């Protein structure tokens, strides 16, 4: 297993009135051709981690890292122009709510083909054909009609399929999915996740799956990083999540009500201030090594 991406000592900081706030604190991890889950509660820094990889931290936020290496190039050292080649072409991202993440005044077809035309330098006609193909791959029944439609005419599930099509059309190596289904209904969630999963596997891509939902992540990923207050407190194989050792992870797991295992009272997570001081656990898996 070779690593597509390696992140070393990543921090994201925001200056505030009361000094600097560190939203992500010195985290390191790697991504192979695998599905890596990043789990945490709101404010744990999971979304910022995703955006930091694409160097999309808005001012006045500060992004620092020893390196973020994609196939041997340090993304922090390349020019803005080169970074744009990386975005979309090598790394893509799907965001939470298609209602906001699609441009409301542009036709869906134009939005999807735009990226392809840019990265593949394809003609308008080729791009159109490719776009329609891609829409079909995300199981949209009437691609021609959807191509001409505007985002507001689509349901949430359709919108998210369109996002997937749009982000996968330039054939990137890595897909970052930032809470891709938390704005969707449960029955639709499954469909969308399956479509995404199939396409990612088929293309041998690396997937970073960011979510607050431990259930989804454990079902859907190979390996999980658990973030707390900007740091990785634990990393483990997704199917062994129930064997997690850190009190935070255990507390999180136990606080979820379960249909099959009724309890009178849910366990409440007792936060320990010591967690804030622990060093971040490394999520790096060395090349060639299989995750334990």
């Amino acid at each position: 297993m070779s690593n597509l991406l390696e992140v070393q000592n990543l921090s994201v900081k925001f200056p505030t009135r009361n000094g600097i706030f560190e939203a992500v604190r010195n985290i390191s991890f790697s991504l192979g051709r695998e599905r890596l889950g990043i789990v945490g509660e709101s404010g744990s820094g999971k979304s910022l981690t995703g955006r930091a990889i694409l160097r999309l931290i808005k001012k006045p936020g500060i992004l620092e890292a020893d390196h973020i290496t994609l196939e041997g190039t340090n993304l922090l050292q390349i020019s803005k122009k080169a970074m744009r080649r990386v975005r979309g072409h090598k790394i893509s991202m799907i965001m939470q709510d298609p209602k906001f993440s699609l441009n409301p005044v542009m036709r869906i077809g134009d939005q999807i083909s735009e990226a392809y035309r840019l990265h593949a330098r394809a003609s308008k006609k080729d791009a159109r054909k490719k776009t329609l193909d891609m829409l079909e791959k995300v199981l949209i029944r009437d691609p021609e009609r959807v191509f001409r439609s505007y985002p507001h005419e689509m349901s949430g599930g359709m919108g998210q399929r369109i996002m997937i099509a749009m982000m996968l059309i330039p054939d990137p190596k890595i897909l970052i999915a930032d809470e891709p289904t938390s704005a969707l209904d449960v029955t639709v969630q499954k469909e969308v996740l399956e479509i995404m999963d199939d396409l990612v596997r088929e293309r041998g891509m690396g997937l970073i799956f960011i979510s607050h939902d431990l259930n989804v992540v454990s079902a859907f990923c190979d390996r999980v990083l658990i973030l707390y207050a900007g740091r990785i407190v634990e990393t483990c194989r997704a199917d062994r999540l129930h064997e997690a050792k850190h009190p935070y992870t255990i507390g999180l797991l136990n606080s979820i009500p379960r249909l099959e295992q009724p309890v009178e009272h849910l366990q409440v997570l007792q936060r320990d201030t010591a967690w804030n001081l622990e060093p971040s656990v490394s999520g790096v898996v060395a090349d060639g090594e299989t995750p334990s």
Partner: protein
Amino acid sequence: MATDNTLHKKRRKRSLPLWVKGISNTVFTVAITMVGLLFVTFIIGRVMPIDPVLSIVGESASRATYDAAYQELGLDKPLFLQFFLFLWDIAHGDFGESLLTARPVGQDLIRVFPATLELATVGTIIGVLLGVPLGVIAAVKRGSWIDHVARVVALIGYSMPVFWIGLIGLLIFYGILGWIGGPGRLDIFYVDTIPSVTGMILIDSLLAGDIEIFKNAISHIVLPAGLLAYYSLAYISRMTRSFMLEQLDQEYIITARVKGLPESTVIWRHALGNVKVPLVTVIALSYAGLLEGSVLTETIFAWPGIGSYITTALLSADMNAVLGGTVVVGLVFVCLNIFSDLLYKYFDPRAK
């Protein structure tokens, strides 16, 4: 998922196509607004301290002449009937006769309106061409020196009395430097030398192929139009900036960046594409503002447009002319509103 109101089952008895309803709605709204506007104008005309009969028949007229004129004007009829007669007349383009020019007010308005239109249009075009890019750049480079400059430029624009800065401008550029033509639309010996087709000299002179007159007209319009443009620029650039900032914060902008699009495409295609929807309304408002601002500007520059017409009429108590002018400016306002509504619907797919 905020509320559960997503509506799923639509039971529709379609009687009329939606667009027919839309248009008939618009027409109805416009009609109501127009009638209301005319009503207010009518009331203003009625509460005037000036006796319209006296101003026609003169101070020394006999009682009989006075009464005859009184009835002729329909003043003996009930107020609301008078209002309908007033509406009827206006619907036929009859605004009565001007005391000052002794011509029908309608004809006067047709004569003076193009001058105002020309001034405001040139002003708006310059204002949009400079204001939109300035606003966009200020938003993109928020907090930079260019943003501050744009802010100061706009604040000064908001704060400057147009009649004063016009005077100062005339003093400096015409009186001292002599760079531009003075008051009026043309130098005096060019006036009425070309046939009036559109009433807008810049266009008429080009139609007549007379470059000399065109240049002269430019030298006259440059200062007043430049001033109006400045006001329009101040407003449009601020609004553009604010809309842009709002859009640049949206998620779809991140999507566009994730796709690897160059910043220029992200800004000018994606963000501005969304900004142009509300911007249409702003530009229409600004245009209307310039038409109105012409009242003062035209006074300063002796520009023979509707603004000068109204003020001159006002100072000589020529009520028909004042009311006619007010109605026409009001009409133009209403039309601009409708036009911007239609454009809005055209630009925003969600509004259809």
